[in-house]
């Protein structure tokens, strides 16, 4: 195997395939990225039995062939190379990489030990890559990071005709985003629970490429695999078992008794400042009234902080709720509109955050439900 390739194309392709590779794999070859050259195309593959990633990069090939090298090392090297064409050659048990006057020799692993990657499941439809990436980012932040409840570490995709809904919850907050997509079968009705971290990484890389993103879902849920493809990149991921995923949409209250509208940027800054006096999970109290909003944190004995900020409040009685500051900031960061609309039922009940225009008009499609903290006195 011997080829010449543009530095950026190589670095991007390697970064994509190496990103999910395990640091301590069960078998050494799984720490590798496989390079295979045929017909002036370099195929890159990474696989850890949960997630597979592939990329294709056009090259000038002098000789076809394949080599398996440490993915992390190759990714770090290609990222650090100067912006010049890269010469790559497999010589005996080594991979030689030359770029300008820099030269690297990497040991290779036996190609024949590398597992076969799963095929991309059957194509289900396409979605705008940029919109999908934004939607994933808005939702994945609400997923759990705690393996105690594996189901909560996923983002649930619900494909219903032209609607694609994404849901995630760690039991304390719940984010739901609905966007449009183009299903291959108009009557499609399917869902999939995708590991949130994998989905977020995938979306973050594929989103900026723009264009269409193919969603591929194994027909029977038993197959347990989803695939995404855009341009010359593709990835597959095992699904989490979502058979018992709770009917979380029912958690949204049917109506509200009060609403408040607050500028997102101002409130974000206030919450960040005020929450400095507490620990990570020390609640911030939001007191809404006709006079506006007062944000407070801290107790009587410890450090305290409070700050008033503008808010328009529509309700009979003032409304005071306490939130985990990070949960609140996550919700605010996901709104992607200038105004946050809080809808309340009563202080102990979950509040809904929704994005709105400058004028306070709710922009449908995204909702963030957050359970207030109960302060025991």
């Amino acid at each position, binding site marked *: 195997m011997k080829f010449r390739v543009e530095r950026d194309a190589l670095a991007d392709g390697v970064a994509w395939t190496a990103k999910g590779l395990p640091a301590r794999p069960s078998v050494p070859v799984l720490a590798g990225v496989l390079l295979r050259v045929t017909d002036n195309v370099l195929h890159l593959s990474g696989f850890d039995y949960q997630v597979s990633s592939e990329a294709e990069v056009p090259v000038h090939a002098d000789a076809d062939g394949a080599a398996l090298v440490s993915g992390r090392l190759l990714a770090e090297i290609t990222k650090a190379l100067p912006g010049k064409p890269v010469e790559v050659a497999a010589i005996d048990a080594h991979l030689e990489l030359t770029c300008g006057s820099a030269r690297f020799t990497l040991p290779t692993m036996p190609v024949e030990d590398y597992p076969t990657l799963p095929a991309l499941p059957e194509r289900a439809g396409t979605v705008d890559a940029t919109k999908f990436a934004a939607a994933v980012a808005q939702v994945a932040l609400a997923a*759990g*990071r*705690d*393996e*105690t*409840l594996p189901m909560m570490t996923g983002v649930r995709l619900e494909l219903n005709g032209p609607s694609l809904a994404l849901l995630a*919850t*760690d*039991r*304390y*907050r*719940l984010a739901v985003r609905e966007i449009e997509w183009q299903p291959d079968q108009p009557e499609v009705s399917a869902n999939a629970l995708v590991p949130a971290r994998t989905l977020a990484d995938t979306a973050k890389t594929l989103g900026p490429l723009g264009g269409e993103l193919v969603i591929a879902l194994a027909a029977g849920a038993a197959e347990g695999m989803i695939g995404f493809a855009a341009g010359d990149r593709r990835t597959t991921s095992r699904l989490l078992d979502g058979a018992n995923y*709770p009917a*979380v949409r*029912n*958690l949204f209250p049917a109506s509200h008794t009060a609403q408040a509208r607050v500028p997102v940027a101002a409130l974000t800054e206030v919450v960040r400042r005020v929450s400095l006096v507490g*620990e990570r*999970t*020390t*609640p911030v109290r939001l007191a809404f009234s006709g006079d506006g909003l007062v944000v407070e944190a801290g*107790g009587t004995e410890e450090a305290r902080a409070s700050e008033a900020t503008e808010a328009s409040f529509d309700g009979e009685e003032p409304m005071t709720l*306490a939130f*985990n500051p990070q949960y609140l900031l996550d919700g605010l960061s996901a709104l992607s509109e200038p105004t946050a609309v809080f809808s309340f039922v009563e202080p*102990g009940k*979950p509040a809904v955050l929704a994005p709105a225009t400058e004028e306070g008009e709710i922009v449908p499609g995204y909702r963030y*439900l957050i*359970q207030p*903290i*109960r*302060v*025991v*006195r």
Partner: protein
Amino acid sequence: MGRSQAMARERDDRFGPAADDTGCPILHVDMDAFFVSVEVRRRPELRGLPVVVGGIGRRGVVSSASYPAREFGVRSAMPTARARALCPQAVFLPPDPPAYAAASRTVMRILQDATPLVEPLSLDEAFLDVAGAARLLGRPVQVAALLRHRIATELGLPCSVGVAPTKFVAKLGSARAKPDGLLVVPAGLVREFLQPLPVAALWGVGERSAEALRRVGLRTVGDLAHAPIGQVRSAVGSAAAEHLHELAWGRDPRPVDPELVEKSVSAEVTYDTDIADPLAVRRTLLALAGRTAGRLRASGQVGRTVAIKIRLADFRTVNRSRTLPNPTDVAREIFATAWSLFRALAPADPIRLVGVRVEGLGPADGAAQQPALGAPAHGWRDAETAADAAAARFGPAAVRPASLLAGGALTRQSSVARGARTRGEDSVSQGGDSGGPG
């Protein structure tokens, strides 16, 4: 305690109650054979007899032995079976942790009458700084005598007190005073007191460090004090070396800190026979989670990190922990995490011991509970608090998870291990169940 037995037993007048206590504001109060003393108090017929409190199962361990039992060589942390062999005529009693906790509270209350600067080390010992009590109660020796008198007459429990310029010397002093004694280490005699002692007398020197120090020829505290620091470093590393050197000269700047509270709460069980059935482990974890959560609630604390400890038949010990998104004192949450950790571990070999520990403790009052979305207004926490109240009235078996009925995981496995308190620098991080040998 155990160590004190090895030390000189004669009462040395230089360190008696009449010694000069100027510059000796630190008291170390240590209850004598605490668990046994509590048992003897309610069964006076046992007074003067060899009495052993400990797990009475096949693999039980001695928690506390009366002084008559110690005459036969019985020691805390010794397998109960060995204690039986050494002293078959002893009265063996299973531990009654609630009784000891209650007795401990009454002791601490008396100590706090003397000064708010009380730093409990465990159920049965505490440091006091009585410098501020001089005007009300008198000199440190007078305070020490008063406390001993009150604890003996009001509570019927014996204790020993060390009076010294620093914490660790006071602790050595109380050990030397045992049983039922009072010892003063005058500021001017600290070196004379310390330097003949074996290096193992110093805080932070366990068996391994002592062995390492012995290998470079340092056997006594005096050897250590006069050795070049490089020689100490070569034995125990540089961080420990500086520290031990300071201690060897009697320097210990740590103040008595009443805020120094438990850093973790834990409970563990040693099975009578090794078990391989994960469902049996599951029941144990459920019971241990209930116990740790109950103690968290009783002490008004919540914890962020749940850890499990699994000891396999071949004594390999594995610890796994996970930090929760929100601090908790709810058994159900502690159990869910512990069980998940255990399932991820999936040990192939039979299991000897299972433990649950909650760390990252903070005060629960004023604290905030983050309920889950859709959780009922009265959730598991309320249910468990109600169970606490029922247990307080009707006994610990009043309300239990259904899978623990019919003999219950813990009642069958009688040997509830009481983790030994760490003797090192971290000895203030009491493992919860570790009342320590009494």
